[in-house]
């Protein structure tokens, strides 16, 4: 690129990155980094050590309320297609969905939250769930996480396809293994003509712990 071209390329990328004007979140991250005390180092290093042991590598953003994580495949899982980042809801302890990214992608997660990782197969179901949550220390950051709830996200699917012949309680009794959609007959053995999106929704609910089941 020529002189103007390269600089204009940068301006165009910045306009696309933050089309609304000033990037208040970026400014807040910088200013948070100038506050003392900064992030307590011992908990961060402890969290990093745990993640490293699982084959997940952290790229710390200095003293910021979000942490960039490189979602590497855990060494115990060889065929993961994606990594799912979940966080514990501090109020209910249920798992909430933060993001699902390709293996190796860099993704930001909020500091001050308990993060759980899942390796996800090509079929969209969890292959592995980290056995414990990892708390990323730091000043609390805004969280954009979504829940998958039985009443709102699962029951309508069962009502449409299953409840005509089966009692709701029977449908989920013995057919759901929380955090293991691929071992749950509700997901893998149903004979109802579920769409791909509906089956994915059921699998996600189970992989997130199947909270709120009757």
């Amino acid at each position, binding site marked *: 690129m020529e002189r103007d071209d390269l600089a204009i390329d*940068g301006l*165009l990328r910045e306009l696309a990155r933050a089309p609304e004007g000033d990037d208040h979140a970026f400014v807040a991250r910088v200013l948070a980094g100038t506050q003392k005390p900064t992030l307590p180092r011992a908990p961060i290093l402890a969290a990093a050590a745990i993640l490293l042991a699982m084959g997940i590598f952290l790229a710390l953003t200095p003293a910021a309320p979000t942490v960039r994580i490189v979602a590497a495949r855990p060494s115990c899982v060889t065929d993961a297609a994606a990594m799912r980042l979940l966080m514990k809801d501090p109020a209910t302890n249920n798992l909430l969905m933060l993001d699902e990214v390709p293996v190796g992608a860099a993704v930001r997660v909020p500091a001050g939250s308990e993060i759980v990782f899942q390796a996800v197969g090509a079929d969209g179901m969890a292959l592995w769930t980290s056995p414990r949550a990892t708390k990323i220390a730091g000043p609390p950051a805004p969280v954009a996480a979504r829940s998958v709830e039985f009443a709102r996200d699962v029951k309508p699917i069962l009502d449409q396809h299953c409840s005509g012949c089966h009692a709701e309680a029977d449908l989920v009794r013995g057919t759901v293994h929380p955090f293991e959609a691929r071992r749950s007959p509700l997901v893998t053995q149903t004979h109802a003509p579920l769409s791909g999106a509906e089956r994915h929704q059921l699998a996600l609910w189970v992989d997130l712990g199947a909270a709120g089941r009757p």
Partner: protein
Amino acid sequence: MTIQNVGDAAKALEPKGFEALVREHHRRLLSYALALTRRPEVAEDLAQEALLIAHRDLAKFDAARDFGAWVRGIIRMKYLEWTRSHRLERMSEGQIEQLDAQHREWDRAAEEGRGDALAALRLCREELGVHITETLDEFYVRRRSCADIATRLGTNELVIRKRLQRARDVLGDCLKKRLGELHGA
């Protein structure tokens, strides 16, 4: 705001002064980092690290210099570290110097009250035709590759590359006019 004397530099040492500098300069600094890395997440990290270093070393800041130019120098250093650690091909010294020169011109335009480069570019972008705007959106906003865009728009990759080049040329000319660079700034 440009720091022009020691008194201003002393004010900048206060948290509020630094905050004002960050608010004023962050977007141009991010666009500089984006021109170097072309990756938003990396550009954000480099710009953030550079600003934190600037905050730490504010006492060493030469008050005769422009704050934006100073932090761009730190970003450039962090960019070189990043390419080294990731074994990436880096931009040539000449290209980086040209990028710096363009940003210095935009600094002068801002100091002399001739306008802000990003604001001017936004206006210039609105004057472009439909086809060019669509291609720019596909490439910069939706971050699709030229090959993907060509497939979606039913043309070939070379056409898309030329269209993007043409768009940047047109925007460059428009920017110069809006910032008065053609009139001997």
